[in-house]
C-alpha cells in the first residue's frame, strides 16, 4: 500500500482508497516519526525576565542538564527556536516584545510559562504586570512554583513532550498562528479580563485600594 495522490478521490480509485488525511497506518507511522523527532529536539528560546530565570539557568547547567531532553542548544534567535520558555514575570512594557518574539518563531512552536508570575501575575497583582502571559501568547504548559525547582521545569518539559507525541501533523489547526486581531488582542477582551481576575490573597484588595 502506498501513499495516494490527494488529488485522486477515493471513490475514483477504490483499489487504493487511502486519503492522505484518513487515520490509516501510514499517517500514524509518520505522526510517530515527526512527533518523536520534534519532541526530542526542542530548542528553547529562553525569555528570562526575573528570579525564575535563575532557576532556569540551574536547569540548563550541568547538574540537571537540559541537553538530555534534546535541548542541546539555547536558541537566542527566535527564528531557530521551537519552544519559548517565559521564565519570570512579564511587565506590560515587555508584552509587545514577547509577542514579537513569539510571532517571529516559525511553526511548529510551543510555549512554557514557568512560575507563578508568568502563569498568573503571581504576587504582582498591580498596574504594571501582565496577569499571565496567556493573555499575550498561547501557552502549552504552565509550571507552578515560585520559582519552580529544576525538577518542576523538567516535568513541565516532559509534559510538553507528551503533548507533542499526541499531536498529528495532519491536524493543521494545531499550527494556526493565533495573531493579534483587529481588537488589538489575541483573545476576546472579556477573556483577558476574566483571566486577569484577582484570586488568592489579592482578592482582598479592591481596585481602589
Amino acid at each position, binding site marked *: 500500500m502506498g501513499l495516494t495522490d490527494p488529488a485522486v478521490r477515493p471513490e475514483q480509485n477504490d483499489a487504493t482508497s487511502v486519503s492522505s488525511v484518513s487515520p490509516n497506518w501510514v499517517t500514524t507511522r509518520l505522526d510517530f516519526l515527526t512527533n518523536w523527532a520534534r519532541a526530542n529536539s526542542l530548542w528553547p528560546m529562553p525569555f528570562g525576565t526575573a528570579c525564575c530565570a535563575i532557576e532556569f539557568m540551574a536547569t540548563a547547567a550541568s547538574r540537571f542538564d537540559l541537553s538530555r531532553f534534546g535541548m542541546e542548544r539555547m536558541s537566542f534567535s527566535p527564528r531557530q527556536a521551537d519552544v519559548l520558555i517565559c521564565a519570570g514575570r512579564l511587565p506590560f512594557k515587555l508584552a509587545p516584545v514577547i509577542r514579537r518574539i513569539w510571532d517571529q518563531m516559525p511553526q511548529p512552536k510551543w510555549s512554557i510559562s514557568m512560575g507563578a508570575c508568568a502563569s498568573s501575575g503571581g504576587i504582582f*497583582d498591580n498596574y504594571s504586570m501582565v496577569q499571565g502571559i496567556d493573555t499575550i501568547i498561547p501557552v502549552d504548559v504552565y509550571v507552578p512554583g515560585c520559582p519552580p525547582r529544576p525538577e518542576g521545569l523538567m516535568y513541565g518539559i516532559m509534559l510538553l513532550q507528551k503533548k507533542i507525541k499526541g499531536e498529528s501533523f495532519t491536524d493543521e489547526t494545531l499550527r494556526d498562528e493565533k495573531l493579534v486581531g483587529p481588537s488589538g488582542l489575541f483573545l476576546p477582551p472579556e477573556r483577558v479580563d476574566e483571566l486577569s481576575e484577582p484570586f488568592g490573597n489579592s482578592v482582598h484588595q479592591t481596585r481602589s485600594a
Partner: protein
Amino acid sequence: MSPLSPSVPALRAEFGDAVERSLVSSGDSIVYIARDRSHDVLAWLRDTPSQGYNYLTDVTAVEYRDPERPLEVVYQLRSLPRRADLRVKLALDKRGPLEVRSVVDLWRGADWLEREVFDMFGVVFAGHPDLRRILMWETYAEGYPLRKDFPLRGHFSRAEQTRQALAANPEAHYSLEELSIADAFDELPADMRERLARGERGFLK
C-alpha cells in the same frame, strides 16, 4: 545620635528664611528649603568648598498617606571628599503645580533620577533637557503610579491595559541617541518628536 550636620547652620547663615526647618532622623540631617530657592541652595552646596556636595546620590519623592501633607521632593547629597551626607527636601503643596527647578545642570546624574520622579509622581522638573517617562512607556496614559490617588491595579481594565501594551512599539521607548537606527522617529508621539528635533539629544529631520 549624630548631631545636626554643620551644613545646616551654614545654610541658614547664607540663605536665611529659605531654610524652612531642619531635623535629625535616624542619624541623618534633613533640611527643608523653599521651593523657589532650591536651585540656588543646591548649587551653593555643590560649589562652596567648605560644603563640597559633589555627588547626588538620589532624587526621589514622597507622598504621605495624610492628604493634607505636602508632597516632598528629596535630594540625597554626598560629599565624597568630606564623607558627609545631607538630605535636602522641598515641600510641594499638592493643590498647586508640582514643579521644581531641574538640577541636571549641576549633576548630570540627575537626568534619569528626575525622569523617574516625573514618571512615578508627575513632578515637573523645569529645565530638564529630556523630561519624559522612563519606567512606564512614553504613551502610558493612566497617570502617575506612585501617587496615593492611583489605584493599585491602575485605572483601566486589564483588557484595555493589555491592548495598549500590545499596541506599543518596543523601539519607541528610547531617545534617538539610544537607537542604532532612527526609524522609530516617525512613530514617536508628536510632542516628543518636537522635543527631540530641537534638543541637544536629537537631530533636525
